[in-house]
């Protein structure tokens, strides 16, 4: 009865996806885009070119590396924030709200702001007492990590906090009966309970970073410095600067495979029942 809605939903995504797979097999560029249906079919040539002659491999390494770093970095910060805001204290509501703000800010706003902060003459150098470049060269990688970390950690916090709130009072009671200190209680009783929501947050965070386009695009511009030429930006440049549409889509398809791996791990871990089978 409600299936039409569901099926339609899937089709609206699946058709472009199928089209993308098809385009990745075409010799589609600025010369053929006007009559794109008639572009030459060239099989896997775009994929071969992507792997052999482009920065794709480097971009994949970079994307995975920085996303992993950011994700791992989010973990302690998010957990600390969740634990610290769990206990009742004056102004807790306000603090909770403030901590969420970086995550809520549109990526474009975050990018514009940090771009100004990281200018050669900008406040970052002024405050840190450093000099030189943040938006190009080896340090740009760290600039990207810092900004994504700043904008992304509240997700872990959000889910960890949600997990904490759903904990049974009996957990606390039991820990109190054991006479455990705060660290032992946290380490052995509370945190293990958060494994579910927190791993969900980590997977989402990783996927979000791998696919993040707006932030690196706004932060570094194009052509992107080699150290931060992440996959989405590379794909975008190939399409919208070099007009290699077929090649670009082929790269994007490869990135699908990339996100498929953590996705598969996640799918295994997540509870996939719908409540029907539990009784």
């Amino acid at each position, binding site marked *: 009865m409600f299936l039409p809605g569901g099926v339609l939903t899937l089709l609206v995504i699946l058709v472009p996806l*199928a089209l993308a797979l098809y385009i990745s097999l075409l010799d589609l560029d*600025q*010369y053929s*885009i006007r009559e794109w249906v008639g572009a030459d079919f060239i099989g896997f040539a775009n994929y071969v070119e992507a792997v052999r002659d482009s920065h794709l491999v480097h971009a994949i390494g970079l994307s995975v590396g920085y996303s992993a770093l950011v994700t791992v970095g989010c973990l302690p910060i998010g957990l600390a924030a969740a634990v610290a805001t769990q206990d009742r204290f004056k102004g807790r509501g306000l603090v909770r709200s403030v901590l969420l703000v970086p995550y809520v800010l549109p990526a474009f706003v975050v990018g514009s702001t940090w771009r100004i902060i990281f200018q050669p003459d900008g406040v970052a150098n002024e405050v840190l007492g450093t000099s030189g*470049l943040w938006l*190009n060269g080896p340090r740009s990688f760290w600039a990207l990590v810092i900004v994504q970390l700043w904008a992304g950690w509240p997700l872990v916090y959000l889910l960890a906090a949600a997990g904490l709130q759903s904990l049974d009072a009996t957990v606390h009671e039991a820990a109190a009966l054991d006479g455990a200190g705060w660290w032992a209680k946290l380490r052995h009783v509370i945190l293990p309970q958060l494994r579910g929501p927190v791993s969900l947050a980590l997977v989402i965070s990783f996927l979000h970073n791998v696919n993040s386009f707006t932030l690196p695009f706004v932060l570094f511009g194009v052509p992107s*410095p080699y150290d931060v030429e992440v996959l989405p930006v590379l794909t975008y440049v190939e399409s919208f*600067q*070099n007009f290699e549409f077929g090649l670009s889509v082929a790269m994007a398809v490869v990135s699908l495979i990339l996100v498929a791996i953590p996705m598969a791990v996640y799918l295994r871990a997540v509870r996939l029942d719908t409540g029907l089978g539990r009784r």
Partner: protein
Amino acid sequence: MNRRQLAALAGALLLGSTLTACGSDDDTASGDNSGVTLTMLMGVNNIYPEQQRAWFTEVSDKFKAETGASVRFETFASANDELTKIQTSVVAGQGPDIYALGTTFTPTAYATGAFVELTKDDWDKVGGRDRFLPATLGISGPDKEHEVGIPFASRPFVMAYNKDLLTAAGIDKPADSWDGLRDQAKQLTKDGAYGLAVGYADGFDPWKFIWAMTTQAGTPVVKDGKASLDGPNTKAAYQAYLGWLATDKVVDPAAVGWKNAQAIAAFGEGKAAYLPMVSASSKVSLDKSKVAGKYAYAVMPTIPPGATSLPSGGVAATSILSGDNVVVAKYSKHKDLALALLKQLTSEESQTSYYKTFGELPTNQAAATALGSDPALAAIVESAGKSLNTPFTGGWGQVQLALTNVVVQSIPDLSAGKVDDGKLAGLLGQAQSTAQEALDKAK
């Protein structure tokens, strides 16, 4: 389910493309055009935003009085925006009727095959091909028979220099060789001022320098469909250009992060003696700056780095053939009206007033001749005559990007005060293969 949907879709798509192919109903500029709106896409003018808006209204009003049709202007903010807009309209078969493009994008637009190739008849509707300065037609098409671009504005590049600083250093006139310019810049770098102001982080400036130097050396980066980005002259050009900041120390180290605008600002503050690679539109900002009345324009050097006279085979180009070309989309249902609008925009009167408002030189021959006598513009007019067009190939956009990318990737070294020979050679090798690949794919 899926496959059937796809098949249906493919059918719809094929049908769609046939429909567009035969769906052009041309009207004429005469007759009743009330209610018709032409759309024109143009670069946004950041120096004169208000004047640009006023100009839009003025043009539309005038066009309405003459033809009954009105004009709606859309603007793009950056080259990136511009390319995206061209492309999306090409795919969609809908969008603006008229596009004002930077000259170097004309080949890209031509390559899509989505813009009207101008016949003799079409040119006549614009007021005749011979109303334009011959030099400005140099990048309208691959050859005279296949032109798509109607020259609208001319923006030759020159360099500005601070007369006071030069006099104080005992320099009587700007150098005519790049080595000479470097030496003068060294002399001028003192007391908190630098010899040169250069926007190393600009998206366009860097390749223009490299293009000029290599063309002057007789080994242009692209010749007859072959790229030569890894030759010794290209490397020498990069070394000279990067060396100004890295090793010669004649540019403010902060310039690694500058765009063209910041370079103009630094010069306007009196903090640099030379400001190479600017157009007449900088006059507006500079006349309001601290150096107002103290600066002049000169053509940029035409003797390549490492030489004292023009090498054989070298071309003494002072600038790329730069400005705006206007193209009309094939899908436009109002082609004749579009041409009528362009006739209005390229008339002597409109072109003169456009120059007065925005500082962009006319492409209209009569208007240009009338301006030629203005001494403040002498160098700019001279540069216009010595401009050379960039190669007309659909791959040029990528070549341009590859040239700029070498500078982007060299910025960290630059800021560390060195030009690493091996790294530069590596970057040039990569740029060469990217550029050659793009040229090979050009059809």
